[in-house]
């Protein structure tokens, strides 16, 4: 049992980590948290289904196209829900409401287009494997493997590429970065695209295991946010550790205590960490914290 809980916990935790990393990217460049994140996860899944069902595109093309549209929607979000708020007052926190609102708009659009019913989504692979005393589906391991690859790629991108370094420079000091000739607007756009892609891929990974519907993203926003804050906002390692902690804790609580408490445990961690260590496990104390 324990092994199975750990496998499930790590896999789901990896998904929360992806969403958590999405929270980080916009936090770095814009100092905002995008509470529509979960809806981007949902959008990528439903758009894939739409392109496959109604445009009759094969799945790989439908998925790539859906991710492209999701990324474009990320840019739209910056333009309509974030930029106007920050232009009006850079210290404003109205983005909490505008991003949440944008998420509700996306959700309602999805209901209009897809209705409230659920849709199936194809698996990457069929079959079951035996791991010691646990039997799990290959699909689950595939999800885990892809998550690991994505996290590594994300790390390489941010730490080893010029563009990634530019993101960090903007995160560190936007004015100074611009003085160095970094196109900060472009970097902001890039972070929005990254956010949308991370959420979208997370959604595509879980879609075969759960069912796709317009409300599938809401809970993921909460869990990804818990992961990011638990690990420390702005810290990629933090988001990963936070995601894993939430994912494993969920399985243990659901399995050994009560399945009904599963969704609450992430929030409980969130409250505890905010009281005990507000900067999160891996976050740095910053004097000008907002």
């Amino acid at each position, binding site marked *: 049992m324990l092994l199975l809980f750990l496998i499930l916990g790590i896999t*789901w935790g990896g998904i929360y980590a992806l969403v958590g990393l999405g929270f980080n990217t916009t936090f770095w460049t814009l100092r905002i948290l995008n509470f529509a994140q979960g809806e981007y996860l949902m959008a990528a899944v439903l758009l894939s289904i739409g392109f496959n069902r109604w445009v009759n595109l094969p799945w790989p093309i439908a998925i790539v196209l859906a991710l492209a549209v999701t990324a474009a929607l990320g840019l739209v979000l910056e333009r309509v829900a974030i930029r106007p708020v920050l232009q009006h007052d850079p210290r404003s926190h109205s983005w909490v409401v505008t991003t949440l609102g944008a998420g509700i708009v996306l959700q309602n659009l999805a209901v209009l287009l897809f209705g409230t019913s*659920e849709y199936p989504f194809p698996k990457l692979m069929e079959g079951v494997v035996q791991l010691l005393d646990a039997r799990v589906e290959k699909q689950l391991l595939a999800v885990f493997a892809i998550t690991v690859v994505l996290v590594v790629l994300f790390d390489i991108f941010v730490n080893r590429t010029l563009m990634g370094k530019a993101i960090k420079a903007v995160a560190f000091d936007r004015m100074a970065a611009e003085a160095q000739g970094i196109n900060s607007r472009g970097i902001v756009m890039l972070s929005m695209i990254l956010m949308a892609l991370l959420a979208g891929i997370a959604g595509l990974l*879980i879609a075969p*295991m759960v069912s796709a519907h317009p409300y599938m993203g809401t809970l993921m926003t909460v869990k990804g946010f818990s992961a990011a804050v638990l690990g420390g906002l702005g810290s990629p390692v933090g988001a990963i550790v936070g995601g894993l902690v939430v994912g494993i804790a969920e399985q243990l609580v659901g399995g050994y205590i009560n399945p009904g408490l599963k969704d609450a445990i992430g929030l409980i961690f969130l409250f505890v960490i905010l009281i005990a260590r507000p900067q999160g496990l891996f976050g740095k104390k910053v004097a000008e914290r907002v």
Partner: protein
Amino acid sequence: MKRFVALFLVLSMALLAACTSQSGSGGTSSQNPSTGSQTASQSGGSESKDPIKIGLVAALTGPSAELGKGIQMAARLAEKELNASGGVLGRPIQIIIRDDQSNTQLGLNAVNELIQKENVVAIIGPTNSGVVKATLGVTAAAGVPHLINNGQDTEFGYDYPHAFQFAMPNRTQARMIAQFTQETGLNKAGLLTANDGYGQPGRADVLAELEALGVQPVAMEEFKPTDADMTSQLLRLKDAGANVILFWGMGNDAATIRKNMATLGWDVPLVGPNPLVMNNFRDLAGPEARNTFSTYEATFIRRPLTPKAEAYAKAWKAEYPDDTLFYGPGEEPYFYLAMGAQTYDAITVLADAIERAGTTDRAAVLEALTNTQGFEGVNSVISFSKEKRVALPDEANILVEIKPDGVYEMK
């Protein structure tokens, strides 16, 4: 004080406006050419050739729209056939259909309007159990016979002297689900039920029926409808040694459960009520839609069809040649036809009762309905009594096995 009066006035005006606009929009769903005097239809048995009005409330739009459409199609078919064979009491039948969008308030409005304004002899519907519950008091107070064509709550056919149930009662289904443990010898039952208004009474029914059989479940778990992941509940059932899962909930949740079971490499039978036979369970579960059992009307699953069922299927095909949902895409009729047949049976048994009563007087029709004996319907031979007004006898329901490619009678 003045402010409160003003507020009250504004509110009541808004309410009035809402009421009128609703009855206005409701009117679009019926063709209502006749303006028969209301007293004429009440007096009954006169020389009047005014149509006999029957009210049908169905969820034509909203979450149950698909089912609602089937109910509407069945009702129009019954109406057409009855009128083609000379009507009832020499008068044509007119079925006035209202859409409640699965909404309790709209359902109440529709039932009130049909009784007060259209002066219908009887009410059929609404589609959803919750709306039925809300409207039973209205029909009882008005003394209007209430034919529940789709609601499955166990009390509908027993606790309301003016109500008649045409769908399979939950308790009957629960008994068959519990008996599955006896028939297969898999009696380490794990319960997995939705913690909502459908799952909780269902769980109580299954528990009561298990107790009657002397079976003690090894574990009981609940889930929130649309829970994305139920592996925790499943692992707890597995850990308790369950070798069969008794389920109560909707098809989409059952699909999640079957997919989660595949994730865990665990494969035991899943047995539940008839939402499982709906297409959406098989759509969502895909290849995992297997080792799953449910209850359903035998009408269009068993072969050969009864003559009545065969005639109904033929008439349906002739009336709706383009329908592929209820009749199915093939030549052979699909078992979905039984859903509409519940409504068809309700209307034809009502017409028979009016004929026997010789009048459209509601009290007389109610008495004639209650005394119905051996009426040959599509889904079953229907008999009512003062104690039990359930159209489907137990033997009309069978256990079926669900596979990715369809639904079969359990061997």
